[in-house]
């Protein structure tokens, strides 16, 4: 057992941390929201230059060959900076699916520009009725020529408004919630039949509702074997969950940091309010939630390559705990700040919004506890409960 970072990992962490520290202070971040795409193309290029966009991709695909820990290190710093660039939808989700299912030609055509920062993508999967159910896909893909014709509607597609290309899920067979029968397609965001309504999100990101009205996709746009995409979706979403967990830990650290500073500086009745025991204990609770969240983010990152059940159980446990911890930290950070924590001009409000909204992305606490239970009760009970965490699989 070893919690030390390798030299390479430490370098990666330092690089990202420095960049965030130097270029991503709160005021700069708030200005980025006004960019047309809702983020900075320039910073995106810098991410590319630093190699960050290639982190999770294999070296054959032109990537860095990083695993869960590398992803965690990057996302944690992004969380500290409340980074708005579309790393999750482009690199982790859409990119991950292309690497996982794409043909050599598709990988070459898409991953190279993606890693280079020239191609921004999105994963259009959720639908108005799907809530957090990954297998709920109503959008239809009908055979048409040597390709498919897509019809349906995608909901709250992160950065779907400015993406160049979309990875779209659609059903080729089966019932609405079957995991069998789901296919993935690469669709040009400006293709005929695609209508996008973009909007800002509560936490300052961008998303879109996307209507697909008989969108024609050629054979070269089919990703993997049609109808068999679900396992890859689950795995890539799992990576997304680990990424969000790490981001949340970074944001919690920042929210705790701001709050601690405020408690030390703000005076009332003649003393810093950090001298009041009730507030001290609340601060301790925030810190403890953050430590528990950090533990789960590490565990999630460390188990991305394990077998299905252990991996998915861990990811659901992590997302569930982090949703709760994030909400607690957010609410208490605001409460301990008082009115100032409620204002748009003050960073804490925005950390709070991001943390609470993370619980609405890729499944919330309730959904993941339910899933954790389902995956646990599949196993021999004694094993599941008593198994040492660190035991090798």
């Amino acid at each position, binding site marked *: 057992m070893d919690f030390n970072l390798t030299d390479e990992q430490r370098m990666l962490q330092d690089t990202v941390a420095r960049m965030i520290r130097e270029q991503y202070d709160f005021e700069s971040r708030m200005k980025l929201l006004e960019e047309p795409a809702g983020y900075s193309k320039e910073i995106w290029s810098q991410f590319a230059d630093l190699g960050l966009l290639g982190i999770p991709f294999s070296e054959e695909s032109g990537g860095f060959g990083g695993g869960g820990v590398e992803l965690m290190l990057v996302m944690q710093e992004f969380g500290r900076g409340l980074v708005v660039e579309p790393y999750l939808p482009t690199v982790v989700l859409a990119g991950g699916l292309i690497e996982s299912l794409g043909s050599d030609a598709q990988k070459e055509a898409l991953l190279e520009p993606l890693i280079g920062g020239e191609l921004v993508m999105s994963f259009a999967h959720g639908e108005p009725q799907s809530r957090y159910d990954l297998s709920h896909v109503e959008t239809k893909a009908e055979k048409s020529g040597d390709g498919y014709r897509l019809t349906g509607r995608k*909901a*709250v597609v992160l950065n779907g408004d400015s993406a160049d290309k979309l990875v779209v899920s659609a059903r080729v067979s089966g019932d609405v919630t079957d995991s069998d029968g789901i296919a993935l397609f690469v669709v040009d965001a400006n293709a005929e039949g695609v209508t996008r309504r973009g909007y800002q999100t509560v936490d300052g990101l961008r998303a879109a509702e996307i209507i697909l009205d008989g969108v024609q996709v050629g054979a070269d746009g089919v990703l993997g074997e049609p109808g068999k995409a679900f396992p890859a979706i689950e795995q890539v979403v799992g990576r997304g969950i680990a990424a969000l967990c790490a981001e949340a830990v970074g944001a919690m650290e920042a929210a705790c940091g701001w709050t601690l500073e405020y408690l030390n500086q703000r005076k009332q*009745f003649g003393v810093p309010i950090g001298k009041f025991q009730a507030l001290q204990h609340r601060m301790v609770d925030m810190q403890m939630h953050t430590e528990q969240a950090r533990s789960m983010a590490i565990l999630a990152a460390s188990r991305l390559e394990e077998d299905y059940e252990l991996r998915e159980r861990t990811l659901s446990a992590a997302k569930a705990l982090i949703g709760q911890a994030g909400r607690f930290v957010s609410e208490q950070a605001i409460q301990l700040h008082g009115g100032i924590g409620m204002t748009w001009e003050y960073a804490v409000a925005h950390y709070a919004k991001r943390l609470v909204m993370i619980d*609405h992305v890729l499944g919330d606490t309730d959904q993941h506890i339910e899933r954790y239970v389902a995956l646990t009760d599949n196993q021999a009970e004694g094993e599941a409960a008593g198994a040492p965490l660190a035991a090798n699989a």
Partner: protein
Amino acid sequence: MDIHYTPEEQAFRDEVRTFLKNKLPEDIATKVKAGKHLGKEEMVRWQKILNEQGWLAQSWPVEYGGTGWTPVQKHIFDEESSKAGAPGVVPFGVSMVAPVIIKFGTEAQKEYYLPRILNQDDWWCQGYSEPGAGSDLAGLKTRAVREGDHYVVNGQKTWTTLGQYANMIFCLVRTDPEAKKQEGISFLLIDMSTPGITVRPIYTIEGGHEVNEVFFEDVKVPVENLVGEENKGWTCAKYLLTHERTGIAGVGMAKEALSKLKSIAWDQKKNGRPLMEDPLFRNRVAQVEIDLMAMEMTNLRVLAAAKEGGAPGAESSMLKIKGTEVRQEIYDLMRRAVGPYAIPFLPEFFDAEAGEGPEVGPEYAPPLAGRYFNNRKLSIYGGSNEIQKNIISKMILGL
């Protein structure tokens, strides 16, 4: 002991219901029920209707135009109003400055200001908090120096709710800087159009504009705008703070919110079934419903004590804490109920009738996350819940 309404109370409830049914403008009720913001015009319109009915000044003595209602009647009115979607009365004029003027003001002040408050001629706002002094009011720094028949006011107030609409502000100002903290404070009425006053909006976490900063730079205020004695403003402030606050628990608002939560949870689907049938979610809704039931009963007990002349005192701190906890829990559940559709930020949906292009999620979804965040204020303003616990532990528990 009888928890039922008396026949008189039932008759009163029917009267209130009839009034609301006939007089509450439908456009206003629709907006309130949808959780949208009201503009100034709408608030004024409703308050004029209430005034015509003689029901605006519920806590004033009858001789000044008050209703003479018992606390239970006020409770009935609040409850029915919330249920019907009537907006709450903006408190700064009718419920805050007016009682102070009635208690401590000169005859001239009463004659001038009270009718203007009833007629909606003045929109009042509150100048209490300052950047350096949150729950610790006595630490305020805004100075007023007597020069002839004027005070000259310099300083800054903050968290001034709806100050953007106001033409009048009541302020606590320091008139004797040498005096000990709570002494040397005076209570001034200030015309917002006086030169030297600047109002700057504060945008809050969800992007809304409810509160403001107000800056005073050499603002001349006639001495006749002093309420009570110079340096005795703390008496007015304390009176106002401990002034009976019937509605502090927000029972009516909480019930309305709960009812909305339930209708959302019936409409939302989880795994193909209404979310309201999800055992865990349903249990949470029931928990908060039961908590609210108990709180309503607690509120009624406090009201009954108030009717008998027992001072609500620190009990209102309990109701404030419990009431805000219950409402925050309900808003939290609403946000969670809509899943990913809590994410879009569509401020045009808060105020206007509908968005453009493809709709984004169910009609009720867009304001929910904002409402959740905005309502974090409940446990902060009006004396944070921590301050309320300090009060209870001193006043009730003697700790």
